[in-house]
């Protein structure tokens, strides 16, 4: 008995362009450098940009360097913000003889009311005063232009702030009027105690078209890509303490990856997929994370639809630009600043034109020498972050007509929720999978 091939819907396709070249580190050479160069590159790029924006903002004011400040003289200075935080963990505290009983690192947030901001450029630094610039919003590493004047106390009293704002966006050329979907999922955490293999299998079956009637399968055929935004496996920490592993433990170590590969093979046989590394995946620690090695996926990597990507990940589908991370950048920002929700933090990073301003201060990153790859020079149409507590989304509008869909992708192992985005109109909805086996 053959299934009638004429009625079989064809999976839709989209043109794909990877823009991850910026996040590759193969060509980088480590000469023992520290992080001053990446900060300098960041300052240089952003300052050039801000200098071009200042005339439109306050053209009557002179621009000067920090050392060139004169008391009482109103001017504009451009530099990198540094936030002095009382509660920020310091490595030397671990060795201090006066250690108290309380644990050194608070997991949630290191904010304190005594935190203050400092502006720094190559010539010097100056403490910032005034209420315009809230230390709870800003973090170390953000480059801004400030309008104000030096006080007698030697502080710089801030009257106004100029952020870079949303970068320019390439106009979205609608290739076709048809619905095409991209599915986002993150935090599969295969191998952890909370992950339910049935749940992910359900997701796989759904998007590969194994479930439902013809109509359902027709909808599934409109999914053109699956993006897995990090933390796909969780390897038991007990096995990673540096001890030699017994042979029976060695298989435990690779079990989660094997399971993931099996599932990815099912997906790759059916539609294109991008897998990004996350903080718990077997990839390097510092950003930009390099793609998971193909040898980890002997089954799925043989498919041309399988693609192992960097974190952060930037790509274009039908000329729609996607940019996103597995969550480390946003989580770190949440530790060192305050926001109502994660979408606000996402929005801030776009306005600051920097994916991860806290890198390398509190977020591990590679010491680039000639560039800062996390600078956002072209506004994406879809900006996502993985491994968040819950699903959130918002459409952001820029001053120059930019339209960005912000998406917080929840952890699948905890929520069973994947996100479906229609690239025709940038609308989002969720796919929720539950597996309640009634007794």
């Amino acid at each position, binding site marked *: *008995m*053959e*299934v009638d*091939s004429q*009625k*079989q*819907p*064809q*999976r839709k*396709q989209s043109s794909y362009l990877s823009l991850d070249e910026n996040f590759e580190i193969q060509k980088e*050479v*480590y*000469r*023992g*450098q*520290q992080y001053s160069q990446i900060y300098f590159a960041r300052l240089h790029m952003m300052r050039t940009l801000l200098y071009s924006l200042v005339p439109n903002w306050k053209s009557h004011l002179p621009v000067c360097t920090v050392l060139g400040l004169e008391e009482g003289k109103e001017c504009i200075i451009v530099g990198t913000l540094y936030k002095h935080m009382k509660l920020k963990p310091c490595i030397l505290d671990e*060795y*201090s*003889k006066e250690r108290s009983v309380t644990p050194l690192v608070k997991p949630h947030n290191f904010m304190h009311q005594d935190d203050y901001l400092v502006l720094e450029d190559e010539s010097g630094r100056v403490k910032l005063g005034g209420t315009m610039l809230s230390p709870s919003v800003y973090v170390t590493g953000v480059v801004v232009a400030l309008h104000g004047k030096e006080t007698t106390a030697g502080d710089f009293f801030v009257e106004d702030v100029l952020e870079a704002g949303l970068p320019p966006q390439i106009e979205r050329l609608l290739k076709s009027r048809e619905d095409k979907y991209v599915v986002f999922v993150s935090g599969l955490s295969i191998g952890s105690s909370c992950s339910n293999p*049935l749940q992910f*299998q359900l997701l796989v079956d759904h998007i*590969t*078209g*194994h*479930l*439902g009637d*013809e109509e359902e*399968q*027709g909808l*599934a*055929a409109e999914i053109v890509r699956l993006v897995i935004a990090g933390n796909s496996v969780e390897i038991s920490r007990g096995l990673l*303490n*540096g*001890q*030699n592993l017994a*042979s*029976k433990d*060695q*298989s435990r170590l*690779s079990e989660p990856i*094997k399971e993931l*590969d*099996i599932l990815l*093979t*099912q997906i*790759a*046989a*059916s*539609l294109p997929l991008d897998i990004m590394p996350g903080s718990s995946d077997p990839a390097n620690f510092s950003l930009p994370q390099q793609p998971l090695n*193909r*040898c980890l996926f*002997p*089954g799925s*990597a*043989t*498919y*041309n*639809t399988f693609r192992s990507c960097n974190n952060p990940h930037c790509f274009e589908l039908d000329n729609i630009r996607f940019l996103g991370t597995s969550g480390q950048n946003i989580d770190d920002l949440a530790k060192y600043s305050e926001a109502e929700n994660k979408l606000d933090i996402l929005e801030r990073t776009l306005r600051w034109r920097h994916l991860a301003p806290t890198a390398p201060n509190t977020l591990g990153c590679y010491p680039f020498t000639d560039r800062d790859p996390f600078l956002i020079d072209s506004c994406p149409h879809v900006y996502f972050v993985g491994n968040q507590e819950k699903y959130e989304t918002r459409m952001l509008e820029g001053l120059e007509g930019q339209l960005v869909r912000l998406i917080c992708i929840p952890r699948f192992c905890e929520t069973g929720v994947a996100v479906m985005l229609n690239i025709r109109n940038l609308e989002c909805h969720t796919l929720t999978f539950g*597996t309640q*086996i009634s007794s």
Partner: protein
Amino acid sequence: MFCGISASFVKRNVDGTAARVAAAQPNSVGISGLSKHNSAEGNAPLPLQQNKVLQSSSKVAQQSPSVVKDVKSESVGGGVHGLSSKPSADKEKIPSLPSNKMKGQNDKNSAGSGGSLANLWVRASTKPKPSGVPETDSDSVQNPNVSADAQICAREAVEDDNSDVDAQEVNFTRASNGESYRKRRVVFDFSDEDEYEDAVNLASPDPPKKKSSLDSKQNSKSVVPEMSNLILDKPNKDEIRVKEERTTKEEETLLVSKSTNGGHSSSVKFENQLPDTDLSSKDKVTDAARNSPKRRKVLKTRIDERGREVNEVVWEGEETEVKNVESDMPKKMESGTTNADTNIVTNTNNRPAAAKKSPAVGRSAPSNPGGKAGNKKAGNAKDPKQGNILSFFKRA
């Protein structure tokens, strides 16, 4: 339910050639996201189809979730693995299926395939580097058709690292004991040294060669026969080589302290402890050392031309060793020469050209703590060769 979506653009790389994942058999049941029936390129997608059938049929006959999962994972694995084998037209392929895994597919599975995906992993962890040597040992045990499989194994091991053929049920114990298991070695290409002159070598060092051995038990065993050979040599050579060994040894441990402590090591400690630990582990070295004229180690501190504090351990009469324990911790360590007899120790720069007399020093030394950690518990701060970082913060 069968998969109702066809995706003709999906291609699978089989043995280096991209093959469209197509349906070859007309009487196959169910399409699982594969291309249309009338595709001419049939490259063994059958098992995948069949396993999808198995998958969907097992779904229909609903059982407990764990069973479903097991069947699915195995069948998927089997199917995938089947895909990794050669096309069905290849007569050489012998279907050596572990029968317990592929029960329902014998009639349909004419394109021979190996075990499940899990075996693919087992194979990947136990098979040696593709060197063209057929694994006749492992094959002969489980597979009566040794020669053909061995050939295929060898060929495919060379051609395609991703896929695997006829993976057998190999134990992990075999991996550690078997002769076919070889330690993976990292090969460094130093061909463009000029461009990367000042690049820091972040890679793990090679394990130490026999000549420059560490004071761990396993190495001492390999050293001993070596040393016995040396003893038989002329005394002059013996002495020189022993000296070299010793200085090498000490340089290594110095490097250990350097790289792990970041410059805050207490060099005085070394002076006292080095000779002891040195001599205790290697009897032959001790003998050889006693044969040489008695020397005494003296620690001298001076400032070199670059403003760095240099601690020298000087042997009375013969060579000097330079320990660059710097107080200001410059990021790049360069070799400083004192006199012609000096053994130069370079610290973080582990290039082979840097160390004059003991080329293996730079690469072998940092593995010392790794070796130690393997023998002792991890995080042991009482390693006598390294200064304790806590000593920097004096206790009240």
